[in-house]
């Protein structure tokens, strides 16, 4: 199983999201081809209702603690309630790498 599918499975189980996108952006960074190190997550869930952004991100960081301790080096998170998603409908693009590595 790839890390990407692990992330999808864990977030599906934790958040029961209405919409979930997990995008491997590792190719944008200073890592070997085929790496699974940098991900962007767009998650739309009722569970975020009433939570500050920090708390929403913590839910995801905790669900993916194992991945973050190991292979996953960067996780860009865009967390919305279904209502916010309806208003916004997109997440901003991630920044380009500047070569910093670990």
């Amino acid at each position: 199983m790839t890390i990407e599918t692990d992330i999808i499975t864990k977030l599906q189980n934790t958040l029961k999201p209405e919409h979930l996108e997990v995008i491997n952006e590792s190719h944008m960074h200073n890592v070997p081809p085929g790496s699974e190190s940098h991900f962007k997550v767009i998650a739309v869930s009722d569970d975020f209702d009433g939570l500050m952004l920090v708390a929403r991100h913590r839910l995801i960081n905790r669900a993916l603690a194992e991945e973050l301790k190991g292979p996953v080096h960067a996780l860009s998170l865009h967390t919305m309630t279904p209502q916010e998603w309806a208003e916004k409908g997109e997440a901003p693009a991630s920044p380009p790498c500047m070569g910093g590595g670990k």
Partner: protein
Amino acid sequence: MDVLERIDEAVKKHAVFIFMKGTPQFPSCGFSSRTAEALKQCGHEFGYCNVLADPEIFENLPRYADWPTFPQVYINGELIGGCDITCEMFEKGELQKMIDEAVSAKA
């Protein structure tokens, strides 16, 4: 001084503080760069620590506020978040307001 005490002292001493890869002038990560830029746009001075130059902080910062990634922005000693949260708050005008208040309270 213990590393967690050093972190604690840094975030409490400054109204606004960022742990980042590189420096605000020469960032070495796109996420750190974008975040430092949002802080600069708010027009107040802020403290920073280049985690790439301080391996002890690099290793231990994630457990200070239970936050696994860099950059990390603190206002009034409280973790605000990383790049995505800081930039989202900046776009909504919330970051400016929070920083203005923190800086005037510290003055």
